[in-house]
């Protein structure tokens, strides 16, 4: 493993160590966020570091007093992190209206976790139509104002600079995915997905340098993926690296995905000319959509099938958290489309507080057998 990749992988055991170190070094503010629709560029332009919270594999001790057991573990374990002091380095949190659960988590978080800065960005659910896009621009401008009032000025020049950095980062990640589609052997799927996830935990210019080094250091195929079955995976957050390692162990490799911490995170670019807020809004509407968003002219299943075909994947894994309503509602329809296209798939539901990779192993093996038999 080359140096840059090794250094990146070391960060995975303690995802916030880089942010804490950065804060100590710079004295600047760190803001937590949950949703991939957060316009990180605006936070970055104000001189703060946005870091993504994606739950934690733990048995909760404090969140049970606020959230029922039928709430997803992403919300339950994240709240637990806040209430047990594990996120004390944060200066604030940004909530985007995502689903019913995140909407309520925002209130509970604001009333109980008490970070100095709390902001709700109520993006539209409709992502098409002039009224929705106009509302989105105004809500983003409103968000920028709140960041300016609480964190620091967001000048147009700084915002343009941040947009360039973020576009460069998305370009590098897209390149990584392209290289892996050509030859998945250059890097395992758990490494590739961490490279994306770590982008939301490390300051972007630094992440760009690391990514460039990683990409330069990729000296062709390691041969590791020889004979491995190419798979596509879909879901919300993918933070279960032991699961991904297991998939590789049993002979599969994920060559492309539709995770919000994967492909959706770097999909589409912000136009660099014109009004920056308008550009950010444009990208949010253009990028691969989350099931929480309504884009009537898009067929999510059709788009996924296209990507499956382009990636050469022969099977798919739906990986989701239990009690995730938006993904649960989309599953039967996408599954049907995959069945009709002859793509075998597997549906897995996990909870952060009871992840058992071993129990999932036989199910992934069964999927691989079906694929190999096809």
């Amino acid at each position: 493993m080359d140096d840059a990749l090794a250094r990146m992988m070391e960060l995975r055991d303690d995802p916030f160590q880089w942010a804490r170190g950065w804060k100590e070094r710079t004295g600047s503010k760190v803001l937590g966020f949950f949703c991939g629709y957060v316009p990180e560029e605006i936070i970055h332009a104000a001189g703060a570091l946005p870091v993504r919270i994606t739950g934690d594999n733990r048995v909760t001790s404090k969140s049970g007093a606020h959230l029922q057991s039928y709430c997803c573990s992403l919300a339950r374990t994240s709240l637990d992190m806040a209430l047990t002091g594990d996120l004390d380095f944060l200066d604030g949190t940004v909530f985007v209206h995502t689903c019913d659960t995140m909407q309520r988590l925002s209130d509970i978080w604001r009333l109980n976790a008490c970070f100095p800065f709390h902001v709700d960005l109520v993006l539209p659910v409709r992502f098409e139509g002039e009224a929705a896009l106009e509302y989105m621009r105004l809500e983003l401008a409103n968000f920028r104002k709140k960041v300016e009032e609480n964190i620091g000025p967001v000048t147009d020049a700084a915002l343009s600079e941040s947009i360039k950095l973020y576009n460069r980062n998305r370009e590098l990640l897209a390149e990584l995915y392209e290289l892996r589609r050509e030859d998945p052997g250059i890097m395992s799927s758990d490494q590739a997905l961490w490279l994306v996830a770590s982008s939301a935990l490390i300051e972007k210019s630094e992440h760009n340098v690391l990514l460039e080094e990683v990409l330069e250091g990729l000296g062709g195929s390691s041969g590791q993926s020889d004979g491995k079955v190419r798979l596509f995976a879909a879901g919300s957050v993918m933070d279960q690296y032991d699961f991904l390692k297991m998939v590789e162990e049993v002979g599969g490799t994920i060559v492309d995905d539709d995770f919000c911490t994967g492909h959706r995170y770097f999909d589409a670019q912000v136009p660099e000319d014109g009004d920056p807020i308008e550009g950010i809004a444009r990208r949010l509407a253009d990028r691969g959509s989350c099931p929480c968003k309504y884009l009537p002219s898009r067929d999510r299943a059709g788009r996924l099938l296209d990507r499956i075909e382009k990636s050469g994947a022969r099977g798919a894994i739906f990986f989701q958290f239990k009690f995730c309503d938006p993904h649960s509602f989309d599953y039967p329809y996408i599954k049907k489309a995959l069945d009709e296209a002859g793509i075998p798939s597997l549906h897995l539901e996990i909870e952060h507080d009871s992840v058992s990779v071993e129990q999932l192993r036989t199910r992934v093996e069964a999927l691989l057998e079906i694929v190999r038999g096809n």
Partner: protein
Amino acid sequence: MTAEERKLYVKIKATEQMKQLMIDYYIDAKAAEGTDKPVCWITSGGPVEFLIAMDVIPVYPENHGAMCGASRMSVELAEVAEKMGFSRDVCSYARGDIGSAITHGGPIGGLPKPDFLLACNNICGTVFKWYQELARYFDVPLFLMDTPFIHKVKTEHATDYVRKQCLELVSFLEEQTGKIFSEERFAKVALLSVEAVELWKQVLETAEHRPSPFTCFDAFIHMAPIVTLRGKQEVVDYYELLRDEMLQRIEDGVSAVPEEKFRLIWDNIPIWYEMRNLGNLFASNNACLVADTYTNAWAVDIRIDDPLTSMADAYMKVYLNISIDLMVEQLLNLMERYDADGLVMHSNRSCKPYSLGQYDLAREVTEKTGKPVLIIEADMTDSRVYSEAQVRERVEAFIESLG
């Protein structure tokens, strides 16, 4: 009904009229299927006034879900959706409705097929996912009315966004029905809707009287017309009748629960399959559930001078579209107005926007009022997750603790 049960109830005379109103409505709606009368399925928080003004027949899967639940038919319908791959963890109204669409099952043999769909996400994000599935299944267009959630403060641009969507909805309906929208007609419908909502408020307010002539279990049944048919004259007539009967009860000293000793507030959607048992359980312990957060959801204001803007605000400000701190204010207001001794919360697996946050709400209410809160774990129509013995025990212990 046993003799003992009969003692616990004083029958509301207007119930027969309400039943007839709903039977006529469903007969009309079912008869419209396949004719040139358009049928639109709409969510309970949706702006039905536009449909009524365009002579579209509104059909409410949630009201139907409640009927299926009350007749204990939801589970078999939900199982149909579960076999299609819908998780048992998603909303049981949605599962039951999808099941019924396929099998035409349920107490009235399913709902008439929609010509188009109208979902308003002011009650949850689930309705949007649910209606998306319906749009695929029936292959009909869906209009999503997107009402931004209010975290403490409502913004001007949110109001403007919803107001613009009202205009988009008008164009959508014109396209679907081939008719021209009449502002004059709409104003009439909005006026009737406001009138019905005002009368419904008056009905609910009669329960402020001690002893109360009316319980929330009555409200759950008698809310059907305000949900489904507001904007029509017969609804106004009906609620006048019901209000007058309740006022007469107050005059005659008739109470809903014969020996009302405790007054409680209900939170969340009813446990439809268990309504009668729960009603009896509270009544036999001399507790009257005098008000609830659910039936108040339709008590919204529409101003005739600017119907679109005021409607946009009204539809955004419903109980499920506001943050926990704003919900606390409303709960405290109910507790005070109805002079309540405690709060009963239904923690409803099917409804996350209603249920997540209840633990914090419960603590706030107890802290601010000193009154106790009981939280019951259940589901509005999926009886498989309900434990009658456990709930009975907890309700009895709770009422005992009241004094």
